[in-house]
């Protein structure tokens, strides 16, 4: 009954099922054809669907993003793979000025149904230009939806929802998650965009985490449970539109909030979550200052010790939460 596949396989399965169901769906990216993708996500899809639907593109990120916009306007549903999320910087014009704004600028008379997939995050030794977490950059832009599934189950369901979606959806996939396994139904299903998920229920403190930090937070929660600290972990899943209600409810219950994310801490997603709680009725329930554990104020370093030091790790989350709950600083 239950079947376990990897996060990468879940993506591939969703892409295959979307292409089977709708001839308008096609994939584009760099080395996604016979090479199978830099992270082997598209794998053998080119053999199933042909080169016209699994298109290897020239190394032209800006151009590809624009082609996706144009094809979406003309009736296709493009799914664009960036080889690394860092390369979004090369395509920001089309993502931010065109994909995000066209619907609005044209008075709601068009949709731009495209999906862009971004392998993100550190931990692979690829250093500063191949390890960033730029999700908050794109989540700052009205008109885009930004999702960050953390499990194979959510990945498949949210990617299928993203392909269905009439608006442009940016999908951030942590590279260290590609080989993680989880239960995934074989049939197509949808997990809604814009809904957070309570990954672990608890009563003493709420962690709102994104992507791989959900797993690190769950691990930290186990350690803290042994010390008698009961942690609730919310997997945010969608950065925009953000499910603020779920966070507010949780904080009212636990009275403490920590935000754990890999992107640079300053002006990152934790700042937005904190502000929303500070603006909400949950503020009056807080028994401690809000804690943010985010990426270091630096590029991602190459040296493996430094690389780990640049993003939150389980031990740091345990210590941060322990201090938050016990009132020590």
């Amino acid at each position, binding site marked *: 009954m239950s079947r376990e596949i990897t996060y990468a396989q879940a993506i591939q399965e969703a892409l295959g099922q979307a292409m089977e169901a709708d001839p308008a769906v*096609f994939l584009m990216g760099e080395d996604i054809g016979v090479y199978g993708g830099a992270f082997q996500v598209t794998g053998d899809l080119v053999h199933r669907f042909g080169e*016209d639907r699994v298109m290897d*593109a*020239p190394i*032209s990120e*800006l*151009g*590809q*993003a*624009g*082609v*996706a*916009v*144009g*094809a*979406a*306007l*003309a*009736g*296709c549903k*493009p799914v664009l793979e960036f080889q690394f999320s860092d390369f979004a910087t090369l395509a920001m*014009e*089309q993502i931010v*000025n*065109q994909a995000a704004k*066209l*619907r*609005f*600028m*044209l*008075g*709601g*008379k*068009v*949709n731009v149904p495209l999906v862009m997939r971004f392998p993100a995050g550190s931990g692979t030794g690829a250093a500063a230009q191949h390890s960033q977490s730029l999700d908050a950059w794109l989540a700052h832009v*009205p*008109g885009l*939806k930004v999702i960050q599934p953390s499990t194979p189950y959510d990945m498949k369901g949210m990617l299928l929802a993203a392909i269905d979606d*009439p*608006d442009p959806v940016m999908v951030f996939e942590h590279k260290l998650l590609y080989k993680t396994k989880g239960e995934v139904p074989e049939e197509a299903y949808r997990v809604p965009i*814009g809904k957070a998920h309570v990954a672990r229920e608890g009563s003493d403190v709420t962690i709102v985490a994104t992507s791989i930090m959900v797993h690190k937070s769950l691990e930290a929660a186990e350690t803290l449970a042994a010390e008698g600290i009961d942690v609730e972990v919310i997997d945010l899943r969608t950065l*925009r*539109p*953000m499910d603020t209600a779920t966070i507010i409810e949780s904080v009212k219950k636990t009275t403490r909030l920590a935000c754990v994310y890999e992107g640079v801490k300053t002006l990152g997603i934790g700042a937005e979550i904190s502000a929303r709680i500070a603006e909400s009725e949950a503020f009056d329930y807080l028994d401690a200052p809000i804690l943010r554990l985010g990426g270091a104020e630096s590029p991602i370093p190459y040296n493996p010790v430094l690389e780990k030091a640049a993003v939150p790790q389980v031990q740091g989350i345990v210590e941060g939460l322990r201090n938050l709950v016990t009132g020590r600083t």
Partner: protein
Amino acid sequence: MSALRAVKANARPFFQRHSAGELKEALRKMYLIRRFEEGAEEAYMRGLIHGTMHLSIGQEASAVGSTMALRNTDYITSTHRGHGHCIGKGADPKLMFAEFFGKEEGYCRGRGGSMHIADVATGNLGANGIVGGGLPIAVGAALAIKKQKRDDVAMCFFGDGASNEGAFHEALNMAAVWKLPVIFVCENNKYGMSVSTERSMAVANVADRAPAYGMPGVIVDGNSVADVAEAIAAATERARKGEGPTLVECKTYRTRGHSRSDRNRYRTKEEIDEWKAKDPIPLFEAELIAHGLATEDEVTAIRISAETEITNGIEYARTGTDPDPNEVTRDVYSSGVNS
């Protein structure tokens, strides 16, 4: 009648391929563009509309000569100087004015303004405020055409300035690699805002760049409707047959400044006057009359009808509906979901 046919027989292919009715409609569109922009300029001066606009006065031949070859199901992507392309592709000037006036009746319900007018129903995927922004979008539309096995085309207007953007390189390369039905129409009006092509390009022509992408590059007199239309007809036919993209460079000139802020410090009055003498509208009128395709009276009637349409359009726009400030975020997402 036989005399008319005889005159027409001596004319270049463009005048033979098109009926007198089609050619007079082309003239009417040129007048509509000219009067539309003069009307918009005047409304701006009088404080009736705000923001900025980029006038294409002097460039009407390239807009009309290019779009003549298109059908409703073909696409265009346009530029910040795009009113002519929009009217050429079949937009209704009164709805364009409504957009300028920021009204709900406008093409973009007043959310886009001059720089973002689009009419997807007529294949107009929109003007664009980003120089070069429309280039890869046109390539994407052409890719969709190819996937859908249609024989339509995507016509991509851009300026000499845009050819210095990276998007130009990426777009032309992809269109050529995939043999997509794109017609890249460069309206070279000599200046990217204030910087001349001589100061911003090491080659003499934008079309010189086309061979680097493995596509034909054609240079035409952008002030001659016939010259533009003949080159575009060939490029469009090539595209419809699946033979790939073409770059057509229309050498032309904007007699007005770049935008409302332009103080004309970078060019001479002599240069402007020289180009005013090559105004494409009287040139086309003279050709129609010389070939016996229109009479003086008909030309006058066309001009008056365009002027009336513009006057009525402005009146329509002035009395339009102002958007509700509570609906600022209405069209950001299809579901209305926000934040």
